[in-house]
């Protein structure tokens, strides 16, 4: 089927070109990487992943990257030490429903299949199948 490109027949729920967001106003999609930056080298990634020591990457142009990430890490470190405010913990405990949580109904419970249970289930299914077969044969 060919696309109808006539703007007069645009569906109401389709965005008009003018209403589309400017690229800068929306979050980047997963596969969008800004083109204006230098690619971070694999060795920098390896260092950031803890696979290389800093001394192995602090050479040449990479020094700039190392210093940049050390600065970012300093800020990230502050966030890493954040704790849940006490008043939030208290509020959560106070907000819990007074009714005790119910155990899941039997059809939503997890079944642990042991070898014995599997054999018993197989034997039972075979017996039911045989009984049904006999009943069908007799009915004929």
């Amino acid at each position, binding site marked *: 089927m060919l696309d109808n490109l006539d703007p007069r027949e645009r569906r109401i729920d389709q965005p008009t070109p003018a209403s589309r967001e400017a690229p800068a*106003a929306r*979050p*980047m*999609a*997963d596969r*969008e*990487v*800004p083109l*204006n*930056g*230098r*690619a*971070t080298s694999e060795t920098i*990634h390896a*260092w*950031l*992943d*803890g*696979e*290389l*020591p*800093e*001394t192995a990457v602090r050479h040449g142009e990479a020094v*700039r*990257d190392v*210093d*940049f*990430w*050390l*600065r*970012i*890490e*300093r*800020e*990230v*470190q*502050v*966030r*890493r*030490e*954040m*704790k*849940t*405010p006490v008043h*939030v*913990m208290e*509020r*959560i*405990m106070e*907000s*819990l*429903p*007074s009714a*005790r*949580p*119910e*155990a*899941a109904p039997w059809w*939503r419970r*997890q079944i642990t299949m042991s070898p014995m249970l599997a054999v018993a289930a197989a034997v039972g299914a075979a017996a039911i199948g045989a009984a049904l077969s006999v009943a069908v044969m007799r009915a004929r």
Partner: protein
Amino acid sequence: MATLARPIPGASGLSGGRTKRYTSGVKTTVTMPRPVDPQEADHDVIARVLSGDRDAFGVLLRRYSDPLYRHALGMTGSPDVAEDILQASFIKAYQHLGEVHGRFDAWIFRIVANGCKDWLKNIRRTHLSYEEDDQPSAFATPDEELDRTELRSDLDRALAALAPSLREAFVMKHVEGRSYEEMADLLGTTVGALKMRVHRAREALQALLEEKYA
């Protein structure tokens, strides 16, 4: 030279026993103590709650709230929203506690992570700002604090510009200090895919921030 690979003081992770590999690299994997009262397994605590001991739920809350709060804060950029998501998630967890199969920490993480994603879907923010008055400052002088405020604000904006999946990967790796293996376990994806996301997030952040900070 700052040493970045050091254990997080007082941090309680979603799964204990992680170890760092290099002491001079940027810290991404850390040693975390097993949470409060390691003698009592999560499923024992859950059994107590299901039998009517409502206060026992506080054990689970104390055990897991900090990393989950950091996750919500990193994803939303707003302490108020992070608190609301945390509260809603724990209440939901309490109501459905009987349905927990397997690890409670992974289960409650998924609830919080989904809460964050739902919020991101519904709300578009142009500015994010942490208000950390009750959080410790790691900076000694007013000048450092001023620099830090600016960097914090810029980093918030840069994080907000990332796609949610990239932001999630960066926050889990760098803010929460998780290993790729643990991230893969919690998110139900592969280590390779997560490495790719973290690398893309770093490149995007560097592109957004390096002009000013490199």
